[in-house]
Structures are given as structure tokens and as C-alpha cells.
């Protein structure tokens, strides 16, 4: 089971700054886009010169605007190629396939106040969440947004002019930093914190909040892991009776799909749990990179999340 797909046309590509481009998608059948909730993402399918890439991107448009979806993509020159493909090859007029929205980072609607902490391109899920909150007049939010330089601050101008009292921007090149400790100490009861950004930032905020005694269920974060490259390895798929090779820059899930085996997935970033796969036999070391399995499960050698995790060793047989 994976999210249903839609055929879309790219109707606009806008360079937001040196690193970020914005893409707008409309359905080719002229129908409306499905409604979604703030924080949802879509999985964009790409045919990158024969390599199939499926990458999740947060929807940044208003959840109530059903005419189109928009995403913003930061170019990652060191990455495996999905963002480079979008930046270099995707032009207005092209047809693509994207998934129905999936939300792994939704607002806790019980929150009396929402404190959002964003780093760089981690701003995107907050853009739709802020639109959802302001449309429903539940505008009690605060955004703390760290960017490298004014030139690289995506959507800073829009946000500060629309929500001058709610948005706080911090520039790295001016040595400004979010005072997480101070921020967390002054919040009223019923406040929820949301973090999206680089791993270091998420870990820092989680550690600070935990140390300050914040309840776990009031802290929310989203981090899409890109599959890490690694040494190539071979895998036996017991159910389909195939042996596959996972190359250096490919994820295990991608290699399974390339072999024509239908495997379930949703986020492709180690978060949702959908692609969880049973290990039948193994002789070697797992490289677990997901947020989904419990530590015990990682140690057990009985389960793997093929979207982000890898294997080093002699034999790996999967129940797939």
C-alpha cells in the first residue's frame, strides 16, 4: 500500500534564491487537488536518466487552495541527485507524477499555542501550517526561523510582512542564533513545539526541551532522511525469488523496485514505517538509519527499513 498518485503538469518554476526553486503542480485532468492538512508532503517521482527517484517534499501552499500544489526544493550538490534533477531538468509545461498528500508532521489541534522552529529549507511545512492556522483564525503561533544569510532566507519577506508580530528571523552571518533555552522557558501551558531543519538543530531543540521538562507529546519534529550512499551489497528476495544488487548510490528500496518487485512505501525517509521488511536470514552488519524501528528491533537483526537502511556482509535474505 502506497499513497495514490496523480498526473500533474508543472505550471510554474520560480527561482526563490541561489539555492531554492519553487515548483507549482496542477492536475493534467483538470480536477481539483485533494485537500490536505498543514505539514503534509507529497512524493515526487522523477525519471533521472533511467534512474527512478521518488523524493518527499513538504507542501507549502495553502491547504484550502485546491487549484495547485507548490513545493520548494533546496539544491543539494552533494546529494544523490533528486534535487539536482528538479533544479536542472524540470521546466514549466513538463508532466510528472506525484503522490496524494501524506502528513507525518501535523499540528496538534489541541495546542493553545504553536511554537515553530525552522532551519533553512525546513521552513516549508510551516508555510502550510501557518496558512491553515491563520485561515481558521487560530493564529496563536510563533515562528523562529534561522537562515544563513538574508539572500538565502526563503520567504522571509512574505512572512515578516504578513505576520510581523509572529515571525522572528535569525541570520547566521550576523551571528544571530535562536535562544532555544529562553524560548522554551517562557511558554504558557498548552504550548506545542514543532521543529524542522537540519539534524543538529532538531537534536538540539529536543535535548533542550527534554532537559527543561517538556512532555514528549508536546514536541513534534520532522526530518526526512535522504538515503545515505554506502558500499554496494547483494540481497536475496525470498518471496519473489530474485537476487538483487544494491549499488553505491541506490537505496535498498530503490533496488527492490528496480527489480520489478512491488514493495510498500510512503515517506521514503525512514519515518512512516510503511516499508518495514522482515529479515529471514543475515550474516553481516546492518546499517540502520531510520527513526521508525525501536532500538531492540535494530539489534534483533529481524527487521529493516529498506528506504534508508543498508547492509554490509555476506548474506541478506528478505521476506519480500
Amino acid at each position, binding site marked *: 500500500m502506497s499513497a*495514490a498518485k496523480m498526473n500533474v503538469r508543472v505550471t510554474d518554476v520560480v527561482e526563490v534564491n541561489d539555492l531554492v526553486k519553487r515548483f507549482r503542480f496542477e492536475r493534467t485532468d483538470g480536477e481539483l487537488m485533494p*485537500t490536505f492538512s498543514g505539514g503534509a508532503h507529497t512524493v515526487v517521482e522523477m525519471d533521472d536518466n533511467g534512474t527512478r527517484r521518488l523524493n518527499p517534499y513538504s507542501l507549502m501552499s495553502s491547504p484550502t487552495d485546491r487549484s495547485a500544489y507548490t513545493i520548494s526544493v533546496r539544491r543539494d550538490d552533494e546529494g544523490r541527485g533528486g534535487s539536482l534533477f528538479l533544479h536542472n531538468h524540470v521546466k514549466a509545461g513538463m508532466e510528472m507524477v506525484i503522490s496524494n498528500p501524506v502528513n507525518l508532521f501535523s499540528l496538534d489541534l489541541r495546542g493553545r499555542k504553536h511554537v515553530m522552529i525552522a532551519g533553512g529549507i525546513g521552513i516549508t511545512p510551516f508555510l502550510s501550517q501557518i496558512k491553515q492556522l491563520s485561515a481558521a483564525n487560530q493564529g496563536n503561533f510563533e515562528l523562529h526561523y534561522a537562515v544563513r544569510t538574508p539572500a538565502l532566507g526563503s520567504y522571509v519577506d512574505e512572512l515578516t510582512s504578513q505576520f510581523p508580530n509572529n515571525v522572528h528571523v535569525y541570520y547566521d552571518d550576523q551571528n544571530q542564533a535562536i535562544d532555544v533555552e529562553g524560548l522554551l522557558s517562557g511558554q504558557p501551558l498548552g504550548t506545542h513545539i514543532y521543529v524542522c531543519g537540519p539534524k543538529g538543530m532538531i537534536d538540539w531543540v529536543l535535548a533542550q526541551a527534554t532537559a527543561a521538562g517538556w512532555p514528549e507529546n508536546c514536541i513534534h519534529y520532522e526530518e526526512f532522511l535522504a538515503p545515505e550512499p554506502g558500499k554496494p551489497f547483494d540481497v536475496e528476495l525470498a518471496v519473489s525469488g530474485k537476487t538483487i544488487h544494491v549499488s553505491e548510490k541506490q537505496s535498498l528500496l530503490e533496488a527492490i523496485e528496480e527489480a520489478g518487485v512491488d514493495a510498500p512505501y510512503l515517506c521514503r525517509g525512514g519515518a512512516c514505517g510503511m516499508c518495514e521488511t522482515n529479515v529471514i536470514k543475515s550474516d553481516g552488519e546492518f546499517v540502520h538509519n531510520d527513526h521508525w524501528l525501536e532500538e531492540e528491533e535494530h539489534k534483533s537483526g529481524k527487521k529493516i527499513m529498506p528506504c534508508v537502511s543498508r547492509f554490509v556482509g555476506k548474506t541478506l535474505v528478505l521476506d519480500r
Partner: protein
Amino acid sequence: MGIEFKKETFRGDYTFSNSPEAMKRFPFPFDKDSYMYAVNMEPHTPVREGSVYYNSFDVDEHYVSEMADRAMVLDEDPLRCQSLPHMELHGWDLLELIMVEKAKDYPDLFQLTRDGDKWHWVNKPLGIDDKFTFMDASTLPYGPMEYITRQTQGDFCVLDQREDNLWMDAGMVTTQADWSLDFDIGMNFFEWHAPVPLAHEKGIFVRALKFLLNIQQGAPARRLNWTMTVNPLLDTSPENYHKWGIQKTTLTPENVGKKQHLRVELQTFFRLPRSNGLVFPIRCYLACLEDITKFPKWGRRLHRVIRDLPEELATYKGFIDNRPMILEYLSQFDDGAETSPGVWPED
């Protein structure tokens, strides 16, 4: 469609009955001659035109009378419908889902016209014609969830999704198999299922929750559940146990065929797009043993299932004391012949 809506009661004189056409589409829940809990979920996609699995929300001959019964239950006990403060958005999601689907599936009965947030809803069987502003609860006579579920058969559990769990934070529950929304409101998935025997040990709820958390927009799922009810009672709630519990003692070998009903729940699961919650409609179908056993395959199979059901389950489902009498009645329809796989009566 040309559904002829019956005027009937589910209390007092119990004039409820199924027409032969309704029996042909009864969701008999057993696909083999034995029963044990399983997650048994499948995609809620149309199966066999005319069956209860064909439309998103099935409307049948009992619609108008079931809605009248719901109104009576709510008059006596308003707490059968509750929605915690953060659940209004979920209510709008549900209202939209039901209106859009019913207007699409039953255009002669329900009509929805939308001009931006100005909506016009016509429900012909219930004689409702309302104009309102979407997302503005002050323009409806009830909150959005209550408004639409007073017009839709089945109970509705409206669930909030957070902390990798589901929370029973709103619902309309008037046709339930002995559980209470007022008791369960605010509970999570494991808490509200705590009384179910055997299934926890089998790890069923852990797997079921994982499945439900991943239900996607536009890709609903369904499963069946069942129990036994004496008399065609929709409202078998704990709140009214003093009224219906005692009726279980009125069963005799002479009346068991007419009085003992198989109660089947068609449970469906839909992702709610704006709130990222889930709605879990539980639609109740009742049929007396006499009507079920008119289908030879169903008669044979029901006898075997009830006979071999573990004692814990017969106790939990509330018919352990009447089981011998039910079996005595059903045994006359079981000649020992083989039954074909699957739920359909004629296959």
C-alpha cells in the same frame, strides 16, 4: 436506485424486518466455517453492484427509520454525541466526505451544490434542504459532525491522530454493540480496546493500529465485525443495558428464529484531509436467524461458527447462556454438507 424506505421500529413493538432484497445483500461476515479474530482489513473499494460494499456510505431501506431511532436516542441521552473542542475541523472533514460521496452515489436522493464556501445540501428522504457556510458552524443547526451524522446510518467514531496513536475524541454512537462513547471519549486505541479478550495476546491491536495510522487519503479500508442481539435493537448501549439486557432471557425454542438476530458491523476507515484525523464509521446490519437460514450455505456455516466459537468470545459477545438454544435451532439447517469459500450466499 428506487429505494423504498420502510417505516419500522427498533424498540417496543419491533416492527423492523428485512425485505427479501435486503437479505440478498446482507453482509454475512463468515468466509469460512470457523471464526477467530484477525485484522481482516481490505481496501474499501466497490465490490458487486448492489452489495453493501459498493458505495462509500451504504443507504438502504432502513435509512429513514434508523434516523428516527437515532433522534429518539439523542433526545433521551445527548451524551451519545460528543466532540472535544479540538475536533470541529474533523467534523467539517466528515461532513464534506459524506455529502460529496452521497451526492455522487445517490444523485436522486442527495444533492450538494457548492459555490466557494456557500453550500446547499438537499436530503430528499429526510426532507432537509439547507444552505450554509462551510467551516462556519453558526450557519448549521448543530455542529458539523452532529449535523451530518443525524443524516447518516451507522455510528461514527471520529479519531484524532497524534503521538503515533488514535484518540476517540469525537463521535456519534447510538447503535452500538455494548460500548459507550461517554466512557471511551478521550481514550487511545489500546485503551478503548482493553476489554476485548484474546486479541491483545495475539498482537492484533498493535498490527491494526500500524495499519490504521497509515490509511491514506482517498484509500479507505473496511472490515467486518459481528455479535448477536435478541430483538432488532439498534441501541444496545451500556447506558440502556437495564432495558435490553433482560430481553436476552425472553428467548425460547419457539421464538429463537425470529427474535435472535445476527448483528454485523461494516466498519470502514477514511483519512480526513484537513485535520489529518480518521473517521471510523460502524454500520450495523441486523438479520434474524430465520431469514439467514433461508440461504442454505449461510445456515450451515452459521451453525458451525457458533458451535465452535471459543467460550471467551461467546461470553464477550454476550450470548453464552443462549448458545445451546441457538445451536439447537441452527442445527436443523446443517446437514453436514461442504460449504464453498467466501461470504456470498450463492457462490
